[in-house]
């Protein structure tokens, strides 16, 4: 079946099986590797994408379910040729090691900050608690989000 949706601002029509997840569609049909496959049960957050601006586990969305919706992956955050300021903050604060959790962290943090523009550090930790990182110990990720939320120029 053909499913039509908007991916990072661009209309897409993709031939899918209903028994594929949207994560399968991204990786296997479109060759887009922004979202990672971790647990396949919605727990790890590595496959996070934004569906109409809200975070979802793309491993728990069936392919037909995105019809008519707007999807954002980490690639959709880039500004022209440059990185999004939150990505700059991640680089500056050393918030990336292996990088597997990073797209999910970025998208989850930005969706949260859109609704909570002045969070405390505790708020940020709670907002990111569904995204697992096995490298950083989280502190640098929270540092980066906090600096970005404070509006520190050049990513804090």
């Amino acid at each position, binding site marked *: *079946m053909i499913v039509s949706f908007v991916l990072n601002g661009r209309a897409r029509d993709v031939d899918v*099986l*209903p*028994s*594929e*997840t949207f994560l399968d569609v991204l990786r296997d049909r479109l060759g887009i590797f922004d979202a990672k496959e971790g647990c*396949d*049960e*919605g*727990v790890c*957050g590595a496959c*996070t994408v934004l*569906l109409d601006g*809200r*975070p*979802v*586990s793309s*491993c*728990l*969305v*069936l392919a*037909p*379910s995105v019809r008519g919706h707007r999807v954002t992956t980490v690639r959709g955050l880039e500004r022209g040729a440059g990185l999004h300021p939150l990505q700059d903050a991640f680089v500056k604060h050393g918030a990336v090691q292996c990088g597997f959790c990073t797209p999910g962290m970025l998208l*989850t943090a930005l*969706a*949260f900050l859109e609704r909570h523009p002045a969070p405390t550090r505790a708020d940020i930790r709670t*907002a990111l*608690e*569904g995204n697992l990182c096995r490298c950083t110990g989280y502190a640098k990720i929270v540092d980066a989000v906090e600096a970005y939320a404070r509006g520190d120029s050049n990513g804090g």
Partner: protein
Amino acid sequence: MHPFDYEAPATLEDALELLAEHRDDAKLLAGGQSLVPILNYRLAKPRVVVDINDLPLAAIRVADGHLSLGALVRYHHLEESADIARHCPLLKEAAALIGNVRVRTLGTVGGSLAHADPAAELPLVLIALDARVNVRSAREHRTLTARDFFAGYLTTALAPDELITDIEVPVLGDAGYAVEEFARRAGDFALVAALAVVRVSARGRIETARLAFGGVGSTPLRVGAAEDVLVGHEPSEERLARAATVAAAALEPQDDAFASAAYRRLLAQVLSRRALARAVARALEVA
């Protein structure tokens, strides 16, 4: 996942016809946050997945003494709705504890109830408040009490051709409320969840009390013996602690891979004491 046929009916009547036709061979897809993991792990092999997301079942309405929530109301709606915050803020507090933020984007009221995990938050709220569940089939419309709806571990009174259309939750009025739960990791199902709803009179005595638990049996359950300890008395620290002790003693939790029965009992005591204390504090604020 195993292949299946996919249907996305546009009307409730079409959905009910599909269920009547395929019965146990069909699975309903709402938010998918319980169904899709089961499909990913090939633990279910439906012939047909009936996607009900196009049905008009997402309304939140306030009507004489209760809130009506459509089956497709999502957890983040419970967290963000002004009507919920005003009339049943307990639902807002409970919804914030569900899964992770991604589960709350898509997961639905009807999905949580139909899945019937005994440690899940919404079934606990429904049991605590004596909510009602409206279900439909091509044959009939039924209204079930929460107690009748939850039949056992991951098991409900729903027939294979029935779906949940909406639930009716009593408004809280001036009652104080609190949910406390403990999970091993953020986002996990609770090992034990305790929920208290308390009304305190102008004379400072407990008028009504509801104390319910999740994760300690095959369905969420209320402990009347503990509620009886509270009603008619001042909500002193000692009184609340005694109710918590009575509740923990009355429960019959099971050992499993995650926690022993004894540990669950201890959690039930501690969490119910905390829930009662917060519920009473809130009741006193409005009394």
